[in-house]
């Protein structure tokens, strides 16, 4: 299992940030996630693996400035 914004989500082999977000509604709103404390941005979603027991936090839009 992994934690996504505090919710338990089943983990599977080969899981990436990209595959996780594909199953989440309104995923297009998230350009950045925090995976086990590290920031991962959309250009790297498909290539970033999620390990079992990971904690993922979906960051809302970055407003910056």
């Amino acid at each position, binding site marked *: 299992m992994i934690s996504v914004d505090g919710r338990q989500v089943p983990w599977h082999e080969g899981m990436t940030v990209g595959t996780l977000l594909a199953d989440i509604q309104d995923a297009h709103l998230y350009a950045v996630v925090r995976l086990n404390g590290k920031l991962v*941005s959309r250009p790297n979603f498909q290539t970033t693996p999620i390990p079992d027991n990971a904690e993922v936090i979906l*960051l*809302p839009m970055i*407003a*910056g*400035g």
Partner: protein
Amino acid sequence: MTQLKPREIKALSYTRPTLEQGYANQTLSIDLSGAAISIKPVSEIMKEVFVGGKGFDLWLLWNAVTTETKWNDPENAICIASGPMGGTPGYPGSGKSIVTTISPTTGSVMDSNVGGYFGPYLKFSGFDALEVTGQGADDTVIFIDGVGQEIKLLQIPGLPEDSYALSQVLTDFFAEGKKQNISVVSTGPGAKHSLIGCLNFTWYDVKRKRARYKQAGRGGIGTVFAHKRLRAIVARWDSVTMDTNNPADKEALTTVSKAYSKEIRDLDPKQNEMARVGTTHLVPIMNDFDLLPTHNFRYGQHPGANNIGRDVYQHLFDPGFDGCWRGCTVACSHGVKDFVPMTGPYKGQTVFVDGPEYETIAGCGSNIGVFDPFTILEMNFYCDAYGLDTISVGTGIAFVMECFELGLITASHTGGMDLSFGNRLKALELVHQMAAGEGFGAVVGQGIRRMKEVFEKEYGADAALLQDIGMESKGLEFSEYMTKESLAQQGGYGIALKGPQHDEAWLIFLDMVHNYMPTFEQKAEALHWFPMFRTWFGLCGLCKLPWNDIVPEDNKETPEPAKVMKHIHWYADYFNAVTGRKVTPDDLVQMSEAVYNFQRIFNLRMGYGRREHDTLPYRAMGPVTVEEYESRRERYDKQLTEKYGVDIADKEAPEKVAILRGFREQQYEELKDAVYERRGWNKDGIPTADTVKRLGIDFPEVLEVLKANGAS
């Protein structure tokens, strides 16, 4: 430090008024030339139209200067104000000051917002705003003693030159045992010897037992301050509670403050962690999206960026509360203790560095090819201590480094320095030279617009290339975001009132990453709404960060998530609770619109503020060189073929660069048309008579400016 022995030049005792619903209802005016101190009333029309903060500043400045005033004329004023909500201790981000003046780099109105205790202490001492004109016969310290109800102009021999030491010394001297009661505004030798001087505003860090500071950095306000022979302005005030502003409805104020404060406290750890890492989280994110300026905005990405972002600075920042105003739960003003500089007057000593924030990291780091976090810390420390704006320093050095690598300038111009990108020791040497007004640093300290003239006329450099790669607009150096792929952000920088600073419109993510505004009309609407709403914070004494850097968990389910409407409703409640004026979220935008248009007309009055001034260097719009084009060839080729229908099969890169440039420059002009129309301006970018009437700024003097410029 020897005992300071101040000599009193002038003093004025006064009776501090009771604040009424966030206002002191008077302003303080000091003319250094005549050592005159006076107090002026605030009229109801000032409050109604200009609200406070930047609005009050602009009105005072407008009345101080003429169309002929230059930055170094005695009548030029430095105006500092908080705002009606400024100084509320429980509502996050309520400690901002806004500073305005006629800028030495742009020649027109400059505004810069800054944290620290000064603005609230000024107001609690009895003044909604301060204007300082004239020039002292000698170095002067202004002491505004809200506790003793006295204003003093002082000469204090033996003060330290740099702002780092000066801030501590003056805090100690005036504190009378309560250092948290003191806020110091000061600058350093860099402001005296350059045109890009900044001001430092202190807040006292009780835990670390030291004066910390934030910067009003942009546009050379520190240079004006130094030219007036002001060494410092010190405000003294005592305890602050929710009652200090004497709000109209304390219960409502307490309720909304608690709700907002709790939301920030609960959600920031789940979102950007600004209370822990400040704005350093933006470094890796901007880098990932090709938006982090590297090598003078040529590229938006670099492998070394991981060395200068959140993952590094979170370990360097000294843990603890870092709020630049009391009770702010965003608390993002982090710093590094026990840092030991390797160069300059503090070489080998232990110092505290306030920062770095994102802009300093990008400007004094990636944009000059430096990916060493400690060099950035040292640049940050010395820029602050010397009173230099880290953004203009970073963008300026990036420009000279590219000029050096392109052969537009050589070692014969730089005093023998190799100014290739990444030469961190020479970058530091330039900072020391700027502060001393010596060597090539003295040239760099004049800012990019003047450097372009020098490089062309004295060094024979290619003027067109200098124009394309010199990242300034209106005379102000760009802040640190890549805009090539975001037309909306090009407008956000190019049409901004004071020049390319992101505090007016930061649309780059909404436009480029989230694609919220695909059409011209949508971009124009965004370039209307966002600058107007962001202006409102500066009218009220507030920080923008709590609004949309921490967002409600259900924000994405709202019709317009980019506006974070839940927070805007809270801001309206906050305004109502303090001032007693009943406003809705839409009213907030209209309040700003009046002041925003007034500032645009102020620019016009000073000889600017037209379409021709809303220009950008081409580097902000697209690839200047073949090298840049080739680095993102797939992206640009695709745009030429799919977006513009160009057959590129037989075209070489230089031709493709030129064709793309034609399209991009054209779309920027079309964007200006759309934005001007949305804002109620004519084709030349001037607010129409109907617009100023609708906004209630149709004063005779405003209409006169429009008439004189053929726009009535």
